[in-house]
């Protein structure tokens, strides 16, 4: 854990309670999959609270995506670990699984009424527009960082990976593995 992260996190009056409540809210209101959760976590923990920086967020996303399991769960584990070690993992993982656990254990018996309810259907449909905005907002920041770094190879990697994913439907795991191999090649990457 970084010293600056440590102090930004532990300097507040109730650090674990704050982590718990933030993770719980993100999990409870995040529809649309793991990358939405990561986008919300990046806005909350990196942009607003400065417990992490954008580079770490990207590194942790790569790790979360490389391990098996749900992206939302994996990112809760690694974000919790980087923010506050093992206690952070326990707090953030518990907060992440409580909302789906509560909602689904109730819905397991009433789901027919829920699926067929026109209001529920409309809410779910319009919610996607906001979800798309949250992800696009994060992508604008992250992509402009890559462009501003003036590292041509990284810019090419980003664009090529985007087309490989969207046009050629290459799996995200394969893309990460290819980037790993390129990273091992002696291509004179910038030392940060």
């Amino acid at each position: 854990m970084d010293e600056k992260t440590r102090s930004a996190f532990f300097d507040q009056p109730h650090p674990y309670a704050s982590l718990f409540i933030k993770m719980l809210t993100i999990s409870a209101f995040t529809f649309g999959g793991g990358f939405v959760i990561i986008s919300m976590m990046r806005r909350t923990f990196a942009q607003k609270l400065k417990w992490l920086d954008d580079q770490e967020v990207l590194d942790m996303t790569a790790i979360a995506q490389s391990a098996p399991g749900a992206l939302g769960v994996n990112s809760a584990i690694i974000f919790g670990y980087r923010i506050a070690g093992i206690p952070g993992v326990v707090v953030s993982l518990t907060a992440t699984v409580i909302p789906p656990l509560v909602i689904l254990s109730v819905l397991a018996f009433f789901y027919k009424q829920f699926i067929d309810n026109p209001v529920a259907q409309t809410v779910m449909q319009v919610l996607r527009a906001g979800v798309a905005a949250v992800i696009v907002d994060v992508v604008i920041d992250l992509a402009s960082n890559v462009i501003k770094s003036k590292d041509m190879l990284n810019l090419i990697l980003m664009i090529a990976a985007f087309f490989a994913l969207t046009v050629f439907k290459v799996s995200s795991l394969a893309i990460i593995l290819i980037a790993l191999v390129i990273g091992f090649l002696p291509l004179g990457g910038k030392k940060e």
Partner: protein
Amino acid sequence: MIFVQLFTTFFLIGLFSFGGGYAAMPWILSLVVEQRHWLTMAEYADLTAIAEMTPGPIGVNAATFVGTRMAGLPGAVICTLGCIMPSLIIVLFLAYLYGKYRDLSIMKNVLHRLRPVVVALVASAGLTIFRLALFGENGGLADIRYVELGLFALALLVLRKTKISSILVLLGSAALGTVIYLLVL
């Protein structure tokens, strides 16, 4: 013993689902529906719909759904624990390696090349949801939904220009959209 079976089944589902929540669905089909007969095909189809309509990872949603139906709340907790256990072990191990080796120059180089690719991953997920939100499933350009387009533009503007939390923006745009659809249109 049902609890042991529930735990091991969802442990395997968690372990095999590489590449996000949707990757769990085929494993749920083969292990939960076809092998154990804990759900019927119709219930499996319903589960897919509910998992998409509710927040939270699909794997955890499925684990809770099956666990609750088989053995109530304890079943739900056991299935969820089983499902997240492989993630916990593997991600913690990777996080430990990351913390230990990220300052090595070879690791710095690898991470430096990995980051733009992760930006592309997030962007591609964003494009998928953007398409789904504005054009519907399998919709062409002519199927554009103007209400969703307006909501998207408004939400993005608020996110870029203010410090309002993303959750409030999500809830606000969903409330506005629901009011427009149900009361105005």
